């Protein structure tokens, strides 16, 4: 094992380095929450002086968590962890293997008075009792006849907890590795698919182009249900996954229940309705009820008696908070006229008397003698899917489990060793209890107090 002399080694073996790196990570993360990142950064960059924007761009400040800075920090942290662990390993191993009997010098010096007491039994009896008691809670019980008449019994607990901190640090390494795997071989993107349509590629997040999928996704149906207050309750897409015109999988996709196929995960992320729906229009002439036709944007139809043609210019689901509306353009011998037809025109008139006179654009009877009526608008939904692949995810999950195990071992367990010296003191026998723990002195104190009580009780019981 390299020695501390090597400057490279001692640099990475320092806990100050760890703390410095963690503080840097904190600072970088704080900056990353105040400067808009990735997709959000584009709008932000346009609103600031271009010099500053290009400087930030060069510094990779618009994607800090995937920047070379962040990568360097993680690399240094990883190296730091490895070197620290290697550096301490031999000591930990020695402490793990070390027989507890070889306690340090001065183990029994300066013991607090409550850890030394006398009893009437002889050394042999006391030794037997104490061994019996220690056996219940401690492992590796051994006794040693130090001098004539003097016996030292020792035991230990929680030996394996010495490795717990290594488990935590290993889990951090796995976490970094898993995150890197995901960053380099994973991808994430979005695709909107209208009902009845298919998609075989997605737009990658952060404007990094498109990505072909290993299969084709067809949206057969999209369903959304709302609560009374208008908030969506559930939405789902019925999807078919096709490959080489064969169906790979067919089923519903719901929020919180992604579909995983060929290493790719598909999520129900959002939805919307497309502007290319169809409107149901009626156009009674002179009060006579006519037929109803269904038209989409851009379509042109002729009015009866060759009085003109009508083109659908725009469909709006909710124009100016007044509900569905269609803008049409009528061409006739008298020229062109364009106006809006609201579905709820009666209600709008009621709320704003005289509106159709003041705003001719809102008058459905602008092209006489016709009165256009919007009977309804067919909403055509599209489903918003998020598609991603992350080969690092299983590693990250394993790291999480390891970290939890390691943390519990680190915080709630310690390597405790107990030495009990039994020696004659005149007519009586003197018992001294010494203990060491690698952490949590308060816990050790409590444990020794309990053990001392137990020994006293057991010896008193024996003497009666």
């Amino acid at each position: 094992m390299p020695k501390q002399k090597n400057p490279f080694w001692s640099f990475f073996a320092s806990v100050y380095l760890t703390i410095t790196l963690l503080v840097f990570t904190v600072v970088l993360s704080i900056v990353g929450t105040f400067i808009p990142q990735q997709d959000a950064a584009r709008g932000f960059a346009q609103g600031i002086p271009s010099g500053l924007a290009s400087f930030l761009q060069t510094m990779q400040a618009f994607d800090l968590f995937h920047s070379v800075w962040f990568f360097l920090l993680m690399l240094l942290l990883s190296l730091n962890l490895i070197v620290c662990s290697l550096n301490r390993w031999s000591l930990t191993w020695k402490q793990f293997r070390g027989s507890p009997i070889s306690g340090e010098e001065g183990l029994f010096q300066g013991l607090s008075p409550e850890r030394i007491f006398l009893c009437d039994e002889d050394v042999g009896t006391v030794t037997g009792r104490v061994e019996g008691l220690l056996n219940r809670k401690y492992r590796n019980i051994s006794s040693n006849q130090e001098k004539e008449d003097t016996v030292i019994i020792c035991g230990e607990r929680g030996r394996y907890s010495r490795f717990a901190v290594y488990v935590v640090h290993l889990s951090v390494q796995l976490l970094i590795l898993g995150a890197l795997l995901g960053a380099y071989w994973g991808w994430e993107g979005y695709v909107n698919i209208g009902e009845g349509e298919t998609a075989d590629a997605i737009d990658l997040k952060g404007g990094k182009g498109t990505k072909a999928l290993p299969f084709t996704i067809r949206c057969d149906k999209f369903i959304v249900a709302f609560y009374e207050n208008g908030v969506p309750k559930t939405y789902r897409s019925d999807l078919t996954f096709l490959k080489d015109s064969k169906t790979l999988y067919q089923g519903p996709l719901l929020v919180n229940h992604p579909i995983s196929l060929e290493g790719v995960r598909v999520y129900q992320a959002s939805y919307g309705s497309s502007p290319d729906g169809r409107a149901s229009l009626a156009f009674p002439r002179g009060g006579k009820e006519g037929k109803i036709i269904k038209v989409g944007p851009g379509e042109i139809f002729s009015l009866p008696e060759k009085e003109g043609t009508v083109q659908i210019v725009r469909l709006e689901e909710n124009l100016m908070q007044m509900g569905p509306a269609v803008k049409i353009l009528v061409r006739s011998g008298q020229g062109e006229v364009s106006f809006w037809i609201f579905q709820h025109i009666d209600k709008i008139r009621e709320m704003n008397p005289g509106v159709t006179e003041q705003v001719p654009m809102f008058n459905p009877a602008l092209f006489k003698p016709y009165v256009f009526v919007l009977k309804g608008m067919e909403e055509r939904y599209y489903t918003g899917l998020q598609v991603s692949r992350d080969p690092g995810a299983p590693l990250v999950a394993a790291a999480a489990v390891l970290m939890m195990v390691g943390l519990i071992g680190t915080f709630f367990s310690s390597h405790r060793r107990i030495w009990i010296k039994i020696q004659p003191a005149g007519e009586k026998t003197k018992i001294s209890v010494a203990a060491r723990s690698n952490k949590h002195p308060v816990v050790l104190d409590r444990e020794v107090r309990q053990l001392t009580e137990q020994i006293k009780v057991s010896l008193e019981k024996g003497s009666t």
Partner: protein
Amino acid sequence: MTNTMVLSWVTFLYFGAFVFYLFRLVFGKEFWGKAAFYAVLGGLGAHTLGLMLRWKESYALGIGHAPLSNFYESLIFFAWAVVMLYVIVEWRIKNRSLGVFVLPAAFLLMAFASLASGISDRIQPLIPALQSNWLTSHVVTCFMGYAAFTVAFAVGIMYFLRNIPLFSFIPEAHILDELIYQNTVLGFVFLTLGIMTGSVWAHYAWGAYWSWDPKETWSLITWLIYAVMLHARYVRGWRGKRMAVLAIIGFAAVLFTYLGVNYLPGLHSYLQS
């Protein structure tokens, strides 16, 4: 709604408990300490009842879910966790002097939940993203963590006040140090679990276990600050004043993670309502 009425009584009980803890200091009579503790216990009982009523009422409305789904409910649960932890700590260390510092936190959380404008105390239906079994485990673990950090923060404040004659009742420095450490460890373990359950949930709901959403990033920042604190203690042997300072800095990060990030754009927008 019955639950909000019960919960507003709880606010007064906690305030009463705080006043009793103050009386105990001023008059030096243990009677007030006992009265305060009973007020806390009564408050915690009513608080638990209020939460359960709210849960039940949500089912009566046909939108049944655990009361952990919006800002109001998170504040109420946060306060519950703080008081719960406080009761355990007082019972374990047999010292009532912490009450003066911890109870105001619980009282303020409750009062803020009931009085602040823009916080709706109505039971709202869950949007699809929140309809997950991970909601409960994520919110419970996170707020248990926040509660432990709150107690550590209160003890950190006590650490700096203990030399002022008025506050001579504050326990010795090494007891405070141990309390800061224990609560930090508890908070750290729960925060770790909270981040993990959140990641698993995000893996099912958002398409990635980690998206660098501001709340995620700030939870990592908080986690790192406490990680630095624990390393400094374990490896460099930091104690007392330095730990108290770090407990206060850490709590500032907790507050920002909980409240501050709502002013930054991101995915965790449920709390804005």
